[in-house]
């Protein structure tokens, strides 16, 4: 019982510290991106094994022992590609959100992150009793992500819809002004990271502008909130990935725990 909490706590600690440093440093320089380096590396490392191991297991079953293709179908390129994509997208989105969310929203997101990491440990324990590794881990990742992310999405959407404040000037702004307001929210530095962040802010402002223009249809406001909340899928998956990292690469692999986790095998 203690170990899952340790795993989740370590994952949350890494995320919190990384984002705090990123947020603090970004005020001064775009080199703040270095603060996200360890996070990105750990996510990438964990994703690597999560993608590669099931692939190898499947290949072992599907490919003949004497096949000459075995040397070519290692899965490294596929794994690198998928891991890189996920790392890039999730870290970018999380970093962007870290810059714009209020303290309350940040606390909610970290709670969701912690719950996802914790739920993964328990989910993996249950699924390990029925599936072989690495499939148990793969399925646990998927199942827990959906189970946590769906209620989290609703929760974030509700908070966002009811409490997140938007700039009042947007109500009377035309498209250009809305874009300008969105761009003004981010740093005024003309550097590459700032420009990426500004681009995301601009995209968000345009979305909000459209919602305002079509305010006779309040359902669009809900879609806007839901769209923002879908980000919780990335939070949950990243939480699970970092939980796997903490489990496999940080905490010692005590035999007792393994017995407890995987039974007699």
């Amino acid at each position: 019982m203690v170990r899952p909490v340790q795993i989740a706590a370590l994952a949350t600690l890494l995320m919190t510290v990384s984002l705090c440093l990123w947020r603090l440093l970004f005020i001064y320089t775009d080199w703040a991106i270095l603060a996200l380096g360890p996070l990105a590396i750990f996510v990438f490392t964990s994703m690597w094994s999560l993608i590669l191991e099931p692939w190898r297991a499947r290949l072992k079953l599907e490919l003949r022992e004497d096949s000459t293709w075995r040397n070519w179908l290692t899965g490294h390129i596929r794994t690198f590609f998928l891991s890189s994509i996920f790392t890039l997208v999730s870290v970018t989105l999380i970093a962007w959100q870290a810059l714009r969310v209020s303290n309350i929203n940040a606390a909610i997101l970290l709670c969701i992150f912690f719950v996802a990491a914790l739920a993964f440990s328990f989910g993996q324990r249950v699924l390990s009793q029925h599936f072989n590794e690495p499939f148990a881990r793969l399925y646990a990742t998927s199942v827990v992500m959906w189970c946590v992310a769906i209620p989290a999405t609703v929760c974030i959407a509700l908070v966002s819809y009811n409490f997140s404040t938007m700039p009042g000037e947007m109500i009377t702004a035309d498209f250009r002004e809305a874009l300008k307001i969105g761009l003004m929210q981010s740093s005024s530095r003309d550097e590459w990271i700032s420009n990426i962040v500004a681009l995301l802010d601009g995209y968000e402002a345009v979305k909000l502008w459209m919602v305002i223009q079509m305010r006779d249809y309040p359902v669009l406001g809900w879609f806007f909130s839901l769209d923002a909340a879908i980000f919780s899928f990335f939070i949950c998956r990243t939480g699970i990935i970092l939980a796997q990292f903490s489990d496999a690469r940080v905490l010692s692999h005590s035999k007792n725990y393994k017995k407890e986790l995987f039974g007699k095998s």
Partner: protein
Amino acid sequence: MTKEKPNLARWFWGSIIFMAGLSIFLSVAGVIRQSVDATTVDSAEANQGESGLGEPTATELSAVELDNLLSGANLKAVNAVIVQIEPLLEEVYQPVYLAIPKFADYYYSVPGQMVALSQKKLRVKLEETLFGGFDKRLSSVESKLDNIFSSTFLSSVEDETAEINASNNNSGALTKAALDDVKGHARKIIVADLAIIAGTKIVAKIIAKKFAAKLAIKAVAKGSGKLAATATGLGTGAASCAIAGPVAVGCAVIGGVGAFLLVEYGIVKLDSWWSRADFENDLRTMIDEHKHTVKLEMEKAVKFHALSVQDMSAKVVEQHDFTLRELSGVGNAETCNIATNLSTAYDLMRATLKERNSAAISALREAASEQAGNLSIGRLAQEITQNLTVAEQILVKSIKITGNLPMPQRDDRDVSGRFEINGKTVEIPKIPIKEGDGFVIELDGEINLNIKSNLDYRILLEQHRRIWDNRYFGGMGKKKISDVIDTADGLVNVINTTLKISHDESAESLEDIRLTSQEGQLLFVSFELHAKPLTELKAGSICQQD
């Protein structure tokens, strides 16, 4: 099973320790920089421009928070001003009170009594003596109140802003812009609104005129006595001077003037001895009343001013940040419906009296209160709630009574009396009536009633007979106002009703009349009811803006 993965704990913990250390260092550096910056305002502002060190986060107040902040500041300013009105007015009136004995000295002198015969001259003297420099002093109070209001309002806003900044969260650009906007507007509207007080300045002339008129009446009364004394002096002088032969007329005139001055002096001294204290008290009471009126006017003006500030800040708040929930209220069908319903119900009440039954007013008031916090239609709702305070008031402007006295007591004699509505009295002047024709009494009045109350009315009549004792008659009736205005289109409604009067043989005055409505002579009474006009709504519907 997969092979054991390399343990990266050292890298993991190393990263965490390094990042945590750097974060702590930056936070501490930020705090230190902020405290250093706080020592000089200029450097703090420069720091804001850099959007950098010392500003880890910027807090944007929500519209509701901003509204609360501004309302709180407004309330503080109103309270600060109201507390100061009394002491400031004391300063303004102090010279007026001090000048009372001086004016009394003048008044109780022979020249003073001469001047007192002319109301205009007396008023001028009164203004000179008591109200010299009054206008200037009152104007200075206005500017002082202006300053107190604006400084309290602005300092309260500044304090709140400083509090936000002190919590390590500088107010965001939008909040700052909104607060700057409010401050700019607040400075602009102050003088214009408090200028309403200037209207009270003419009261100085009014009080002088009023008091002078009162004194002039007394002076004329005394003058007739003096005239008689002078005439007597003239007669006595003429009799005494008869021996003077040809200059007897001149001697008589001198005697008369001498007698007049002697009498005048004597009367003035006597009058002073008898009534000077009362005179000064009367004057002091009138000045007290005047001061009280000015105080009330000033309080009213300050409250009116506060409403203007509130109105202005509401507009600023409307332009401030919003949530999507609030946005969905702006212009959507549901909110438009609510706004339309509120406006329609209000407009109906504005236009027709019959819509102003207490249930409808309560329902509208409740519906408006529910929407008071709504960002989209809150101002509309608040305006409706405020305007509805007079919706239940109704004014009886005229009363017409037609009929005759009971048959046995009819006579060609004058009749007078009084008509009472809910305890408020309208005097019926003495009118001649013909035995056969009866009477038509038309009365004007300004009697305020509430729609929820009953219309309790009674008539008391006195028949003035020449030889015999006067006869007394009484009767009463009752109507529920809400029942009788049900069909009233427009804001004026005439209620026709009846009452019965009977002769009270035992009554010896109007106060003695015992009222019965069971039997007697039927009288027709009609009341002209005027509903208080409701102000047109200033806050337009958000649906119309689209």
